[in-house]
């Protein structure tokens, strides 16, 4: 299962052709950013406090007690 997912990812990421700078109008749309948006900061914080899982979203991975 895990191997199949890894192969699928490799196929997806390796099968693409290069997109030129002048073709990136859609990719450069502000809503297309791949990182956590600033406005999501506090939603991510409370999720980190109320759930056991954290990380792998480009956001904070530790620090602070989160105990309230």
């Amino acid at each position, binding site marked *: 299962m895990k191997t199949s997912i890894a192969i699928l*990812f490799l196929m*997806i*990421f390796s099968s*693409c*052709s*290069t*997109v*030129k*700078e002048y*073709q*990136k109008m*859609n*990719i450069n*749309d*502000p*809503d*297309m*950013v*791949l990182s956590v948006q*600033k*406005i999501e*900061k*506090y*939603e991510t914080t*409370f*999720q980190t*406090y*109320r*759930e*056991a*899982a*954290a*990380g*792998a*979203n*480009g956001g904070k*991975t*530790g*620090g*602070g*007690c989160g*105990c*309230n």
Partner: protein
Amino acid sequence: MREIMKIKFILVFAFLWMLNVKAQEAPNAEYQKKVLESTEVDILMSYYAQDGIHSSVAGGEGTEELTDFTSSIVISMPIKNNDVLTFDIGISAYTSASSSNINPFDRSGASGGGDDDDDDKRAIEKPLDEGGANPWYASSGASMSDVLVHGSVSYSHSSEDRNTIVSGNLGFSTEYDYFSIGIGGGITKLFNEKNTEVSLKGQVYLDEWQSIYPTELDSYLDGGLDNDFFDGVTIIGNPDYEPTNFELNTNEKRNSYSVSASFSQILTKSIQASLFFDVIIQEGLLSTPYHRIYFADKENSFIEQFQLADDNESLPTNRFKLPIGTRFNFYLNENFVLRTYYRYYYDDWGITAHTASVELPIKLGQKFTVTPMYRFYTQTEADYFAPKEVHVSTQKYYTSDYDLSAFDSNQYGIGLKYTDIFTKAKIWKFGLKNVELRYNHYTRSNYLDADIITLGIKFID
């Protein structure tokens, strides 16, 4: 002679070619686009409210009512052409009924300021019809509210060709019983005409508790039932209250180390994806000192309606976390963008979790975007979790914190963003770039509900 003419011709040709190259390079050499064109100021505010029935301060049963108001300001400034300096400063003020019951018998309301007067700790009996201590209601003690202050500074440098970005950051956060320092750095490389991005980051958090314990536990440790705390009060149920498992923490440090790798790829003119991978190691005091535990093999003792703790939470001093996440974003057309996210999480406390979320920004003209969003989360319980009065006193590790129990959660919400690309509205010299308001409702299968409203305002110089 013919050879000399040939050399002259080559030299002239080479000179003209060089001039031509210079002429082509000149504009690039003179105008290097800045990484950040102008100073950006982001103001963020949020209001969070939750309620539930599984207070970990009351051993797994009791009110989890909490409100939190947070605001912060993030200022990003260009330094020359290639560097960006960012400051992030914020303050968060919360009131928590659950935390207030660290000392559920404190009705003085005068214990603020962190003094250690015995008066603050003494159990003050009240008839039940006048609202005696009860895990379902807040006390008025100092721990019912606190303020968290955080700040960080980060610096990033981009190479001339913008294919390498090196960054570093330093930050802190502090509240009454907790202090955290964070330091980190990273490098990002772009390849393949900036279609591929690989990033590696390291982060260390050096945290320290100033332990606060459930009042009856540390009072008992200092003189047993002869301590002033128990003076003149009636212990209902088992009158020989004896929390013998309890001891003070000898190590109050909590360190977190993480290495994060990410890989991003533009797949087509309208699709891009990324893969995130974190390795997180935590060590030190990973339990929360004021979380109560009630054992199945100990007789129950009460003051008023509040059950006295048999011990506080006990958890291992190490934790290894391994989250892996992926995002796929699709530019469907000029009106719709689809943002998707999935994460798998594993840790060595026995928790596995899955997170999936989807957002659909819908552009209504050039200025407004409406974004409906949904997030699903599920986790298994930690090896050390059990509800109230299920653990036994011979166990090494135990917690009744329902954040570590098995549950599913659903979060759904909506966002509204106003963007003015011409930044017509001005405050001092800053123009308003956008305003975004988001509301989310969160509901957990073990009876915790929360709402969060976030407001973000962006100004540019």
